[in-house]
């Protein structure tokens, strides 16, 4: 009799819990999974952790009466390491959401873990459009930018300016392949052609061999489908081998502010690039970046700014639905427009893409710059719908047609 009564109470409690899907743990945990130590560390890394902490502090430190906690780890750009950390975070450590996720191969692996466990991931640092394409998942959002937006930004601008024959120097993993594929599609759609490519292992110090191959191809444009340290080395060595002096032009398809800082304006001047954020755009971006700079002594990259936006939007959704249940939170997030210091009137598309305006920048000449971090001038704003439009449709099973 007593046992039956207890069972009934337990059952009732379970039902109640399921119905409300409350926050059951003592804390809401957010994991920042990033490259903390290698070639992408400066564009995400500890700066992303700092951005997440700022978001939590600005939110007030608690949500639904529960303390918000940030944990972080180094995935070392290895998909297996990233997936193992994600699994441990979700299963044992009670992490509710993972963000940053620089490096597409790692993000794709973590997305599979999140899919299996119905957990939210908000990808800021990775680029591959496959995250919201053929590998799309119902509880993940690709927050800051993707290879489609980069192609529609820099790729289209370069072709329209007369750069109609391309040779790609491509990082040989998920990201590079996606960036080359998406940019090729845009180049061809705008009437250009692709003469060849070379796939280069991630984290290469010497690009001279590949640059000579690009030179021999006689393509007008050498497209750099790589990122971070690889892009820096490519651009630096291209100057050395007279690629630009010989009449070819470089197109940096994914360039972060931290890369320009490392290259110096003398080498980087005139480069066009697409980003979703630059610290010196308006009073709001300057105010936020000033706070970030005070903590890190660097201006934020778009990835780091995106982490702040993603964490804030997540916490708002958790507060609204009073739950950390993945699908519930995601439903709310997809129904809420995104408005923060970097994103205006953004919305999350059904495939998980955050559709937001992108910006085409040009790197200033040394004479135009007032000092460190004063690097970009705005060339064009690309409306979100145009930036994230896939020229060949989307294979994502979540969207029909």
């Amino acid at each position, binding site marked *: 009799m007593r046992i039956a009564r207890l069972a009934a109470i337990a059952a009732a409690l379970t039902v109640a819990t399921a119905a409300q899907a409350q926050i059951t743990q003592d804390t809401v945990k957010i994991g920042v999974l990033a490259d903390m*130590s*290698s*070639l*992408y*560390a*400066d*564009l995400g*890394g500890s700066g992303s952790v700092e951005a997440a902490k700022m978001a939590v502090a600005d939110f007030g430190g608690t949500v639904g009466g529960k303390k918000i906690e940030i944990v972080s780890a180094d995935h070392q750009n290895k998909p297996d390491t990233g997936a193992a950390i994600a699994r441990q975070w979700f299963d044992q450590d009670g992490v509710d959401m993972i963000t940053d996720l620089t490096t597409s191969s790692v993000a794709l692996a973590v997305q599979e873990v999140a899919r299996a466990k119905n957990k939210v991931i908000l990808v800021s640092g990775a680029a591959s459009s496959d995250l919201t394409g053929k590998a799309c998942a119902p509880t993940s959002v690709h927050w800051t930018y993707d290879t489609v937006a980069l192609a529609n930004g820099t790729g289209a601008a370069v072709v329209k300016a007369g750069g109609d024959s391309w040779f790609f120097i491509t990082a*040989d993993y998920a990201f590079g392949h996606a960036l080359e594929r998406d940019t090729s599609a845009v180049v061809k759609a705008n009437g250009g052609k692709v003469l060849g490519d*070379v*796939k*280069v*292992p991630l*984290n*290469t*110090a*010497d690009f*001279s*061999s*590949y640059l*000579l*191959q690009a*030179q*021999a191809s006689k393509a007008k444009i050498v497209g750099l489908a790589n990122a*971070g*340290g690889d892009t*820096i*080395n490519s651009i*630096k*060595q291209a100057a*050395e*081998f*007279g690629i630009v002096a*010989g009449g070819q032009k470089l197109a940096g398809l994914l360039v972060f502010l*931290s*890369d320009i*800082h*490392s*290259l*110096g304006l*003398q*080498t980087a001047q005139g480069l066009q690039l697409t980003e979703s954020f630059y610290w010196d755009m308006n009073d709001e971006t300057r105010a936020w970046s000033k706070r970030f700079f005070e903590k890190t002594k*660097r201006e934020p990259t778009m990835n780091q700014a995106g982490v702040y936006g993603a964490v804030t939007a997540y916490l708002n959704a958790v507060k609204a639905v009073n739950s950390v249940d993945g699908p519930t939170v995601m439903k709310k997030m997809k129904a809420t427009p995104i408005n923060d210091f970097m994103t205006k009137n953004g919305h999350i598309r059904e495939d998980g893409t955050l559709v937001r305006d992108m910006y085409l920048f040009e790197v200033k000449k040394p004479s135009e710059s007032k000092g460190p971090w004063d690097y970009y001038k705005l060339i064009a704003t690309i409306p979100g719908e145009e930036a994230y439009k896939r020229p060949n449709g989307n294979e994502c099973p979540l969207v029909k047609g």
Partner: protein
Amino acid sequence: MPDWLHIAIPPAPLLFAQLLVGLINGAFYAMLSLGLAVIFGLLNIINFTHGAQYMLGAFCAWFLLSWLGLGYWPSLIIAPIVVGAAGIVMERLFLRRIAKLDHIYGLLLTFGLALIIEGAFRQAYGSSGQPYVIPPELQGAQNLGFMFLPTYRAWVIGASLVICLATWFVIERTRLGAYLRAATENPVLVQALGINVPRLVTLTYGGGVALAALAGVLAAPIYQVRPQMGSEIIIVVFAVVVIGGMGSIMGAIISGFALGLIEGMTKVFYPEASNTVIFMIMALVLLVKPAGLFGRAA
């Protein structure tokens, strides 16, 4: 000629250019493996800090430039001396204490120190590197007909050849080198002849470290000056030393240049394998000649 043949066989000029580029990378491998071979051959230390010391050389050049306004040429002298001196301190403080223990202790110690140094620099300077421009005297390029050879790269090949051969000469052909080699074979006897063996060992370590730093200064203008530059190259350099034969000076030089060439060719024919080809060769060499191509079997 069908299309695929064009792709499979690059035109001769491009091939020459690629060989030259391979030679440049080989020059760095040779200089770094040279220092390692000297340290291993004469001190029996597997110096895993070598990559970090190479990085320190590059950073030292950058410090000299940005703090003291000293350019490339003074750095070429000062940076190796500073980093070599730091190496001497390290030998006195740490390595000497484990000299009589198994190799594995030296390996663990130097590996740990390398991680600490790299981590500290990453913490202080970030991961994306500091800019360092090519000195004005070496800017520009020569058009060789088949390729556009940057003057600086030509300088690197020349400088590295001179450094390698000079080191080989000192160790194999001079009285000082003879003392060193004798001290390796039988330290007690050499000490009995009135030679200060511990000091000799310390100075040799300092010299090997200075070689790494010199390579770092040479690398600064073409690669980024960044904390990971050492750990990225050191694994390859170890493979080069193993292929050449641990401790063989000439083996290190020849296999350094040769593997640069082979890696260069791989970048043309199958670029995806360019960062593994050296290790495949290492495995093959170890199977056929476990002491390395130029090593004496122990």
